[in-house]
């Protein structure tokens, strides 16, 4: 880190040493990427989305390439929250980086239970996934109406002893309204956007490319939509916003800060460039040095309109 440049941010009680986080589902539990770079570099890691019980996930193919984007339909394959606590936390705790646990449920009770369990685990924050488009039961349906968001967030809040991040779906008419509902119900911050529901077809075989027919769109293609939503949400709420969607470099990250994000997550871009998280931090620093910005917090919401 350069001498007088301050990259620290506080996301509703979650202190990060820098504002670059690996997005959930794209970074596993960190083991694989630890071969490529020192995980200590990261502001935080949002682990693969967990559920109470293990999930097998959706049938393959689970990924399709689209113009400047990808569709995925993993469907929350995961070993369950208990296996995570037992096998993955000890590994992740070796690094000086925040552990953010992405949690999904198919009933409000499951969400409550997950938050209760995770509140006693050695993690730094809980990211409530109300927005996964790839599982039939619940999840997305929880995130698509303000009153359901209010319900689930206020109920899990009672069990939350860690900062509670609510992850929002872009597949809604008015994301700012949903964010406000989350805030009112006690969310400490919101993260957005999850993937946009999409589909790919092979004209030759006349079949969908994904085994699950539809999937979630991520990558540079969705960046303009993500930026707009971060802008709308950050104007509507006073809790911090974590921005994501198509970020591939530090300049993209700065755009999200200017739009109102306090931190960013990066997912898809890591598939092409496993060093993207580290390089993004470096470019943010260079941008700040060049523009005489001392603290990254000075960029937040700095868009001149």
């Amino acid at each position: 880190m350069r001498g007088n440049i301050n990259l620290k941010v506080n996301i509703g009680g979650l202190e990060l040493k820098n504002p670059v986080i690996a997005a959930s589902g794209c970074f596993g539990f960190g083991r694989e990427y630890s071969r490529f770079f020192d995980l200590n570099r990261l502001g935080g890691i949002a682990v693969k989305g967990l559920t109470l019980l293990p999930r097998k996930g959706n049938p393959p193919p689970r990924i399709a390439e689209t113009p400047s984007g990808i569709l995925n339909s993993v469907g929350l394959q995961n070993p369950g929250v208990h296996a995570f606590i037992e096998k993955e936390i000890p590994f992740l705790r070796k690094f000086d980086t925040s552990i953010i646990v992405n949690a999904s449920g198919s009933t409000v009770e499951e969400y409550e239970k997950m938050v209760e369990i995770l509140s006693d685990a050695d993690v730094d924050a809980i990211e409530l996934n109300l927005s996964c488009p790839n599982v039939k039961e619940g999840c997305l349906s929880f995130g698509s109406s303000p009153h359901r968001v209010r319900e689930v967030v206020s109920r899990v809040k009672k069990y939350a002893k860690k900062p509670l991040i609510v992850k929002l779906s872009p597949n809604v008419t008015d994301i700012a309204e949903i964010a406000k509902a989350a805030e009112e119900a006690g969310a400490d911050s919101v993260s957005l956007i999850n993937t946009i529901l999409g589909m790919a077809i092979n004209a030759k075989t006349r079949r969908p490319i994904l085994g699950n027919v539809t999937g979630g769109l991520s990558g540079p293609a969705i960046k303009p939509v993500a930026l707009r939503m971060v802008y709308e949400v950050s104007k509507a709420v006073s809790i911090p916003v974590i921005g994501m969607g198509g970020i591939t470099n530090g300049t993209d990250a700065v755009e999200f800060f200017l739009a109102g994000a306090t931190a960013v997550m990066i997912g898809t871009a890591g598939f092409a460039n496993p060093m993207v998280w580290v390089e993004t931090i470096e470019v943010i620093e260079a941008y700040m040095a060049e523009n005489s910005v001392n603290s990254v917090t000075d960029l937040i919401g700095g868009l001149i309109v």
Partner: protein
Amino acid sequence: MSTNYKIIKAEFLNADTFKLTVQSEKISQKARPGQMVHIKCGDEGGVLLRRPISICSVDREKGTFDIVIQIRGKGTKILSKYRAGDMIDILGPLGQGFSIYPKHKKIIVIGGGIGIFPLLQLLKDHPAENKKAILGFRNKSCVILEEEFRKECNELLISTDDGSYGEKGFVTDILKKELDKEPADMLFFCGPLPMMKLGVGIANEYNIPCEVSMEQRMGCGIGACLTCVCKTKNGDDWEYTQVCKRGPVFSGDKVIFE
């Protein structure tokens, strides 16, 4: 961590298949037969995802390795334009390769189409005394690497779908005939799913251990994103397993073919 390597040689083997020889001390030393690399196609104007490609052969002395690629779509099209001297961005070696058991005296490798490539280095590295290769191609003009394979095995059998070269018919039919003549210690399959499914059936029938190299669309290529799965047995249950990390080579009795 640099992942950029220099291309030493680029040549077409037939109308739509080309070979790249890449300089990389690391990959040539570390690669085991059956492992793959994950390749970025083009830079900014290129495609978003990397493409998984098997390592076809390595030259550990020269510190180079070969990959052979068939043009299928956008990504492989871009790769086909790379020339000697260009730099190429490659992650690897990745995944699990074929199992080499020194006690095996007789092995047969069975490949179809682009599935033949990883079998070449397997033949090179395997210490068996009797190595046979059965390779299937669409037609005569698709037959490639014949000499390279012939050099590395005791017997090479080629079949084509239309009989325009070698025997007419499926590699699995030839395999059965060969096994009827003489047993083998292990079979290695790489090719289209139906071929591998049939192959595993034959292996079971003749009670011979076998391995298969699976294909799946991939994201990260290193095990982190869970997009590249195939169905595998897990005790009495089943699970989806990452092809990139726990494969591409699996034991034939591990994979559930549907």
